[in-house]
C-alpha cells in the first residue's frame, strides 16, 4: 500500500504522505557494511571464544585461576552435561552452552556449531575472518566518523536538544515506546530523543569499547598503547569486557530490529536502502499529536 503512495496521493483522513530524504548515501553504505561486519565478527568471535570458553578479571587468567564465567562439559556417568558458571551460579545448559550436538553426537564446545564461523572448531580460521572484518569495520567506522563530524550528521541528526532531554519528555517517550506508539507527522521527520541517545551510546561508547578491548588483547598493541591495560584493568578484563560489550550490542540489535519492524518495516527499510522515508503530513484540521491512533 505504502509503496504506491506519492506526495500527491492524498488520504484526507490520515493526512498526505510525503517522502523525505532521511539517510545520506554515506550513512546507508556504512550501515549495511556494519551489518555485514558485525555479523561476521559475532560468529567468528564466538569461534575464538570457544578455544577457551572461560572469562577472567585482571592481568592474567588461565585454567587454574578463578573464572567469572565458564562453559564446561562435565561427565556424569555415561552422559555428558553442559555446565555454564557465572560467578558462583551454575546452570545446566546442555545442548546449547558447554555441550552441544555435532554430527549427531554431543560434543564439548562453548557455543554451538550453528552460531560459530566456521561451524566446526577451527580457531585459526575464526581469527582470520575476525581480523579481516575487524579491519573493514574500523575503516568503515573511521569514514563514518569523519562524515559524521564534517557533514554535521552528528550535530544535526543525533545531538538531542535541551528540550528533548527534559525528564518529562524522556518519560513520555519511554511510555510511548513501551506501547509501541511512534511519532507521526512532522515529529517523525527526526529521530526522537531515545533513538538519538541510543545511537550515540552505540556509536561513541559501545563500538569504540569493542575496538579498544579487542586491541588490548593484542600483545603487540599493548606495547604500542600500554595505557589500555590500565584503562580496562588488564588483558583478561579486556577480554571479559569485549564479551560483555558484544552482548550489549546484540541486545541493541534485537531491540533495534523489533523497533524497525514495529514502526513500519517497509518504510524503514526503504529509507535505509534508497534514503527516502515517508512521513504523514498532518491533516489540516487541528489534531493533537498524541491522539493519533493507528
Amino acid at each position: 500500500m505504502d509503496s504506491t503512495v506519492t506526495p500527491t496521493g492524498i488520504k484526507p483522513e490520515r493526512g498526505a504522505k510525503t517522502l523525505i530524504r532521511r539517510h545520506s548515501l554515506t550513512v546507508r553504505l556504512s550501515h549495511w557494511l556494519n551489518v555485514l561486519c558485525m555479523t561476521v565478527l559475532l560468529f567468528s568471535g564466538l569461534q575464538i571464544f570457544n578455544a577457551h570458553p572461560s572469562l577472567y578479571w585482571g592481568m592474567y587468567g588461565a585454567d587454574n585461576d578463578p573464572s567469572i564465567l565458564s562453559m564446561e562439559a562435565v561427565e556424569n556417568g555415561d552422559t555428558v552435561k553442559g555446565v555454564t558458571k557465572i560467578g558462583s551460579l551454575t546452570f545446566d545448559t546442555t545442548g546449547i552452552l558447554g555441550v552441544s550436538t555435532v554430527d549427531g553426537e554431543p560434543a564439548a564446545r562453548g557455543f554451538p556449531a550453528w552460531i560459530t564461523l566456521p561451524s566446526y572448531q577451527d580457531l585459526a580460521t575464526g581469527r582470520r575472518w575476525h581480523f579481516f572484518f575487524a579491519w573493514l569495520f574500523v575503516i568503515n567506522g573511521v569514514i563514518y566518523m569523519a562524515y559524521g563530524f564534517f557533514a554535521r550528521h552528528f550535530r544535526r541528526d543525533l545531538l538531542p536538544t535541551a528540550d528533548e532531554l527534559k525528564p518529562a519528555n524522556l518519560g513520555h517517550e519511554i511510555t510511548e515506546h513501551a506501547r509501541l506508539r511512534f511519532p507521526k507527522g512532522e515529529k517523525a521527520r527526526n529521530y526522537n530523543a531515545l533513538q538519538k541517545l541510543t545511537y550515540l551510546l552505540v556509536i561513541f561508547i559501545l563500538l569504540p569499547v569493542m575496538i579498544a578491548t579487542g586491541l588490548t588483547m593484542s600483545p603487540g598493541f599493548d606495547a604500542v598503547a600500554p595505557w589500555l591495560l590500565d584503562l580496562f584493568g588488564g588483558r583478561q578484563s579486556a577480554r571479559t569486557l569485549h564479551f560483555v560489550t558484544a552482548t550489549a550490542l546484540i541486545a541493541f540489535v534485537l531491540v533495534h530490529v523489533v523497533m524497525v519492524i514495529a514502526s513500519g518495516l517497509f518504510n524503514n527499510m526503504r529509507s535505509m536502502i534508497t534514503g527516502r522515508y515517508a512521513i504523514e503530513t498532518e491533516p489540516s484540521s487541528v489534531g493533537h499529536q498524541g491522539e493519533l491512533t493507528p
Partner: protein
Amino acid sequence: MSRLITRRRFLIGSTLTASALGLSGCDVLVENPSVQQALRMAEGLTMRTQRLLLGDNALAREFTAADISPVFRANGTSMPDGAQYQELLSKQFSQWQLEIGGLVERPTKLSLAALKAMPARTQITRHDCVEGWSAIGQWTGVPLGNLLHSVGLKPEARYIVFHCADEFEKTLDGSGWYYESIDLVDAFHPQTILAHSMNGHDLEVAHGAPLRLRVERQLGYKQAKYLMRIEAVADLSQLYGGNGGFWEDRGYEWYAGI
C-alpha cells in the same frame, strides 16, 4: 499428477537447498581458497600497522613479582618423548648444546653453562595464548641480539629460525617437529631473550627446558620451547610447510602480534 510430482520435487529441492545453505553455506565460503587468500591480507595490514606504531623497540609491559601467576599453565608439549631429548634430560642437559648456524659468519655451539654465564636479562611479562588465556611469569635469559652480534649475521639473513626437540605431531615424513621463526626486528628487540630460568629457577621441562624463546610482543605459539638449533635464513619457504612455524603451517598467522 505431473503437477504433484513437480510440486513435490520443488519442495524436496528447496528443502535441500535451504539446509545446504543454512548448515554449510558459511563453511563452503570458509573453505574457498580465494576467500582464504583475501582474508590473509588482514595479517599483512596488522603487521605493517603495528610495526609502524611500535617502532622497533617499544617494550611489552613488565610486571612486578606480585603479579606473577600462581600457576603458569604449560601448553603444547609438556615432555618431549624423543630418545635424544630423554638422554639429554637424564644428564640434566650437561651434554646439551645450542647450535647457531645458517647464514652466520661464525657458526657456534654453546653449552647451557656457557649460556648461563653470559650477561642476562630478567623480565616479568605476560604470556598470551592464542586461545585467549594469559599467564604472567618471570624469565631470565640471554638477549638473542647479543648472540646474533657475536656470531655475525650474513647480509642476506632475514629471519631467525628456532628448531625444537619436540615432535608435536607424529607424522611419517617428520613434518610434525616444532619450529618457529621471527624477523630481525623482533630478533634484536631488547626483550627477545633465550630464557634458561623461569620464576627464579631452572626452566622446567613442561615450560621448555633447557632453553626457550621469549618474544614478548607476540602470542604464545611464537615462544618456542626445547630449543636445539638456531638458524639464520634468507627466506622461510624452504622449511617444512614453508610458512615459518609449526602452527603457521597449520593455518595460524606468522605475525602473531594480535
